[in-house]
């Protein structure tokens, strides 16, 4: 048996590269998840919460103005921004928290970068009346005090992580450390399709509601499958959810859009697949931005949610097999797209999502008018208005 065809592999990627202290717990989680994912009661409660709490199904919105303006393929937006708490993150968090509850856990921990996943986790913890502690790089708590306060309002305790580079990857590390410290009553709610197996698979499954709905909605409206699906990729939860139900439809092209920051060829980038190399980190074998020795890079993007040096192992595998294509979009392109979609469709979309929108702006004109693109708007952009203003040199301090 070689390293590459063991449990939890996506081709050569995946695995469970975590401290022994956590392995028994990972085994319990795997067993519990394998049980509950086929348990009708569990699935019923999950879907009930998706529909009656997270506000699903989310709209599949025909972007008529943008379609006309770009003059190519018909553009549909899958509107995860309309979910309760404003992003796709909630889908996954509901699933994991429900599993935690079923496993008898009373305490949720989570890492967060800008705060999206932390807010989603704190939200469900409030609803489920569970304890919640969120780890966030000190640099991020300083930049995002409002989100810190938001989590506190929801009853969570937020820890500023002062180790390492004090950003998202350090928050992940700190959360894993906290988990090794106290594993009995605690569930680590993973924020993206990353980490040791079975997390990438759980996140895949919980987020696949995006593509399942989108497929059904589009079939109902047009009788057709899309020709392309476009989604932004940080750790890859939104993208894997957007791709999942189309992976076996070979006519559907899949595009994952990474944050290129200042450019894929610069040092200020977060374009993992274009720029990174194979590695083993945060519990998984995947692709990472790292130096030749394997030290993990500090990455950069205007979008805090895409600012992660790795990518989920399933994406690494999809990239390797060629089933999905991964492209980079710069800060400048995403800010342009942020403004473009606001002005044409009246939608203020997350700057993360606007990376996907920017790619649609390039892709649609190259396609025929009878072709269809589904682009996932993974979150709403209210959180980004201040930083866009700053990017444009507008003073919005109140």
């Amino acid at each position, binding site marked *: *048996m*070689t*390293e*590459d065809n*063991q*449990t939890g592999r996506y081709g050569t990627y995946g*695995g*469970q*590269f*975590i*401290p*022994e*202290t*956590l*392995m*028994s*717990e990972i*085994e319990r989680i795997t067993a519990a998840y394998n049980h509950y994912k086929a348990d009708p009661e569990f699935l019923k409660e999950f879907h009930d919460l998706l529909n009656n709490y997270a506000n699903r199904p989310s709209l599949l919105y025909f972007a008529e103005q943008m379609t006309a303006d770009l003059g190519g393929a018909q553009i549909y937006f899958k509107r995860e921004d309309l979910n309760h708490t404003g992003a796709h993150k909630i889908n996954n968090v509901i699933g994991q928290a429900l599993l935690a509850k079923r496993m008898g856990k009373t305490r949720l921990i989570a890492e967060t970068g800008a705060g999206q996943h932390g807010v989603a986790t704190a939200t469900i913890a409030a609803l489920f009346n569970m304890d919640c502690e969120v780890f966030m790089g000190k640099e991020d708590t300083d930049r995002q005090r409002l989100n810190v306060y938001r989590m506190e309002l929801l009853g969570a305790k937020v820890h500023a992580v002062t*180790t*390492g580079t004090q950003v998202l*990857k*350090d928050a992940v*590390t700190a959360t*894993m*450390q906290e988990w*090794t*410290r*106290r*594993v009995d009553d605690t569930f680590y709610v993973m924020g993206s399709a990353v980490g040791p197996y079975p997390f990438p698979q759980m996140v895949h499954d919980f987020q696949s509601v995006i593509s399942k709905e989108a497929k059904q909605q589009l079939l109902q409206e047009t009788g057709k499958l899309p020709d392309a699906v476009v989604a932004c990729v940080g750790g890859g939860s939104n993208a894997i959810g957007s791709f999942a139900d189309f992976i076996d439809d070979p006519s559907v092209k899949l595009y994952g859009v990474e944050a290129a920051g200042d450019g894929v060829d610069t040092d200020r980038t977060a374009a993992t697949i274009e720029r990174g*190399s*194979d*590695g*083993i*980190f*945060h*519990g998984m074998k995947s692709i*990472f931005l*790292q*130096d*030749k*020795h*394997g*030290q*993990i890079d500090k990455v950069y993007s205007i979008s805090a949610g895409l600012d992660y040096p790795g990518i989920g192992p399933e994406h690494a595998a999809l990239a390797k097999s060629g089933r999905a294509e991964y492209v980079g979009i710069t800060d400048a392109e995403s800010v342009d797209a942020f403004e473009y979609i606001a002005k044409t469709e009246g939608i203020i979309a997350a700057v993360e999502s606007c990376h996907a929108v920017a790619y649609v702006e390039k892709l649609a004109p190259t396609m025929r008018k009878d072709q269809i693109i589904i682009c996932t708007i993974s979150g709403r952009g209210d959180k980004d208005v201040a930083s866009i203003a700053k990017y444009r040199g507008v003073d919005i301090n109140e």
Partner: protein
Amino acid sequence: MSNLKQVFTDEKAFIAFVVAGDPNFDATVDHIVALAEGGADIVEIGLPFSDPVADGPVIQEADLRAFAAGANTDKVFDLVAAVRQRTQVPLVFLTYLNLIFKYGYDAFCAKCAELGVSGLVIPDMPYEERAGLAPYADQHGVDLVPLITPTSGDRIAKIAKAATGFIYVVSSLGITGTRDEIQTDLGSLVSQIKAVTDIPTAIGFGVHTPDQAAALGQVADGVIVGSAIVKLIAEHGDQAAPYLKQYAHEMKAALPAK
């Protein structure tokens, strides 16, 4: 398989940890020599990683000092070569799997063999993920020292059976760092290990005083000290050698006889 197991034959072993390059490479050579002179039976050299998931703040800060001194895998191998000019104390590396993966499993193990590094402690490589590295480690005679923790439960048997060199028994949940009290029933943990293997055991995570060494030496075949040594280095910088020698001496002396 290396000579590590032999270390434990006649005496309880004292295993000392330093971070390579903390606060600089010349100092680390001195520190390792001093520890060996003081009585350390094995020196565990930390090859610093940017994101050390198993390490507490004391070792993380040492890593940062080492990075500031230019630490990387090549430099650490150079360091070992320099150490080998002055002492033949058994050495193991503690590092994270990505650094080994990037260097190449085969090349890394070959290099270890060449420089006389006997084993590897890799906190983020659990039993299930040994398969990639193990054939190369075997081939080059480098031990893969596994960790067994208070949560290992019915995983103990399979881990212990596959172990070579020694077994790193983690005293407590959580990350590295000194602890005044260790709650785990280590006696029971070690006997579960002993029930399936005769590979020696050494207890680490939180150990720092001679009293602890004396007590834990009753339970296992050795003790491992990391953060306490790194703290001495943090305090005395490149002048730490005499303190380390003295500390190693006290710890070794406190260990019970076999």
